C-alpha cells in the first residue's frame, strides 16, 4: 500500500516530463554537489519555466540552498548538466550566471549596505562613458533608470541617495529586485524574500514576485513560509537530505501535504531516508 502513492507520483512525474514544454528555461539534470566526503546534493532534475513562480522547500540542510547556489554560479556542480535557454552552461562565477540572465537575491546578502540605492542597483553593471579607457560613471543616465525601475515596481523609496543600510527590509527587497530587473534577468532567484518583513511589506514583496512572473520571467523562491509559498508559487519542489523528493502543482496539493513532505512524515519523503 505504501508504495502506491509513490508509484502514482512516479507516473505523474513521467507524464509531467513528457508534457513539459521543450523550452523550459532551465533544465537541470542529475545535478550533484559534494564537499569532500559530504554529499550536499544528489541527482537532482528540475525544470524551471518562464512565466511561473517555482518554490523550493525543505528543512535546513536539505539541499535547496546548495541547488540555488549552483544555479547562481556560486557553486560548481560535481555532477550533472545545466541547460539555460537551450545552452549547456558551466558557471565559474556569479558573473557567468549573471551573463546568462540569472540573478540571485540572497537573503541578507543581496546588497552592499554601505552604498547608495543607485550604486547597488548598478554595482558591477554601471552605465559608463569610457574616457581613455577609464570607465566614467554616467550618473544622470543611471539616476533616470533607477526612477524608471522603481516606478515599474511601484516601490516608494523617498531618498535614492541614502545608503541601503538605512532602508527598511521591504525597500531593500525592492532595490534588490530592481537590480535583477536592470540586469535583464530572465531567471530571478529569491532566497527567503519575506523573512524578517512586516506584514504589509510581505504583501508588497509577494505582489512584486507575481508581477515578475507575469512579465514572462522565471522566478524561483526559497522559503520556509508555507503560507507565502501557497500564495505566490505555481509549482513547489521539496528537498530532503540532498534529494528532490517531490514536485507538486499548487492546485494539486495543500499545506499539510507539503509540511509532511518537509518533515519526513509523508511516505514519499522516505526515498531520501534510504542509505
Amino acid at each position, binding site marked *: 500500500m505504501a508504495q502506491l502513492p509513490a508509484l502514482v507520483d512516479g507516473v505523474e512525474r513521467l507524464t509531467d516530463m513528457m508534457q513539459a514544454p521543450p523550452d523550459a528555461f532551465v533544465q537541470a539534470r542529475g545535478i550533484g554537489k559534494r564537499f569532500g566526503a559530504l554529499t550536499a546534493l544528489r541527482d537532482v532534475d528540475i525544470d524551471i519555466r518562464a512565466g511561473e513562480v517555482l518554490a523550493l522547500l525543505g528543512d535546513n540542510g536539505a539541499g535547496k540552498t546548495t541547488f540555488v547556489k549552483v544555479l*547562481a554560479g*556560486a557553486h560548481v556542480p560535481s555532477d550533472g548538466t545545466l541547460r539555460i535557454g537551450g545552452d549547456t552552461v558551466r558557471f565559474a*562565477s*556569479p*558573473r557567468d550566471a*549573471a551573463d546568462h540572465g540569472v540573478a*540571485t537575491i*540572497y537573503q541578507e*546578502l*543581496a*546588497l*552592499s*549596505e*554601505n*552604498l547608495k540605492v543607485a*550604486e547597488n542597483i*548598478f*554595482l*558591477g*553593471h*554601471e552605465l*559608463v562613458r569610457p574616457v581613455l579607457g*577609464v*570607465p*566614467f*560613471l554616467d550618473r544622470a543616465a543611471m539616476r533616470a533608470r533607477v526612477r524608471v525601475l522603481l516606478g515599474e515596481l511601484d516601490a516608494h523609496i523617498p531618498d535614492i541617495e541614502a*545608503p541601503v543600510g538605512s532602508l527598511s527590509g521591504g525597500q531593500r527587497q525592492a532595490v534588490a529586485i530592481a537590480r535583477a530587473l536592470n540586469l535583464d534577468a530572465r531567471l530571478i532567484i529569491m532566497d527567503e524574500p519575506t523573512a524578517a518583513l512586516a506584514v504589509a511589506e510581505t504583501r508588497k514583496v509577494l505582489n512584486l514576485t507575481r508581477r515578475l512572473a507575469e512579465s514572462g520571467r522565471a522566478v524561483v523562491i526559497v522559503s520556509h513560509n508555507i503560507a507565502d509559498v501557497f500564495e505566490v508559487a505555481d509549482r513547489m519542489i521539496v528537498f530532503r537530505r540532498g534529494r528532490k523528493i517531490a514536485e507538486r502543482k499548487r492546485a494539486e496539493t495543500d499545506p499539510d501535504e507539503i509540511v509532511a513532505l518537509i518533515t519526513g512524515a509523508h511516505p514519499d519523503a522516505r526515498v531520501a531516508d534510504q542509505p
Partner: protein
Amino acid sequence: MDDQSGVGRDLTLAAACVAAVFLFALLSPAFGTAGNAATVLRNGYELWLIALGMTLLMAMGAIDVSVGAVMGVTAILTGQALLADLPLGVVMLVGPAAGAMLGLCAGAVVVWGRIPAIVATLGLFGVFRMLIFLVLGGQWLSGLPADLTRVVDWRAAGVPAGLLIVALAYGAAWVFLRRTTYGPHLLAIGFDEDRARLMGLAVTRVRLATFAASGALCGLAGVFYIAIYRNVSMTIGADIALEAVAAVILGGTPIFGGRISLVGTVLGVLLLRILQNGLLLIGVPSLWQTVVTGALLLGVLSAEVVLRRARTGAA
C-alpha cells in the same frame, strides 16, 4: 560615501587642526611663521602619499604594513637613477613604476596566497628590508645631487610643486572614487568581499589594482624622500606604516573597510605633523610626541564608540 558621521569627523579634525595651530602659535612665536608652516607641509609629503594608498587599502578592508620598506627600495632606486645622470623625468618615474610592481607583489600574495593582508605584508616588510640591506651593502646612500630637491621646492605662485603633486594625487584618487566604477566597487569589497563576489564584481582585479596603486604612491613617496633628505639609510621608513595607519584611522576610514574619507586622511596627516612640529616648538621633549599621538588616536576612537553608543541608545 559621505554620510553624516564622515562629515562630522572631518569637521572635528579640521577644528582640532585649527585649535592646535592657535594653541601653538600662542605658546611659541616661532610656530606661526610662514617658514614654519612650509616646514610642516613639507614634512608631510611622504606621509600624505603613503596614507593615501593606505586609505584605499583600508577602505577595501586590507592593509599594507610594508609601505615603509617599499618607500625605502624605491628611494634607493631613485637615488641611483639620480647618480646615473638619467633625465629627471625618468628619475621621477622609476620610483612609482617600481613601487607599483612591489605593491602588485603584495597584492598577489594576499589575493592568491589567501593570506591575511597584515600577515602577508609583514612578511614582505622583512623581505624588502633585506633587499635594502643587500643593495646598500651596509653603506649610506648620501650626498645625492639636489636636482629633485629643486623640483619639489620649486614654487608656482607661491605654492611648492611638492604640495601640488600631493594635491594632484588626492584629486586623481577623488575622481576615480567618485566618478568611475572604482569607488563603489572598492567600497563594496570593503563592506563584504564575498558579497561583492556574489554580486558579480571583479574582486581580484580591484584588489590587485588597489595594492598596485598604493605601491605606486609609496614609490612617489620614495622620490619625495630623496628630494627632501638626499640620503638613504638602512632604517628608512621604519615608522611610517604605523603613522599612516594612525592618520587614516584618525581621518575616519575604518580599519575594517567599507567607508572612505580622503579629506579625513588629509587632515589626519596634517594634524599629526602639526602636533609633532608644534610640541617640539613649545618645548615638549620629542619622546613625548609619540605618547601624544597615541593618546590622540585612542581618544578619537573611544569618543567614537561612546558617541555611537549614545546615538543607538537614543534611537
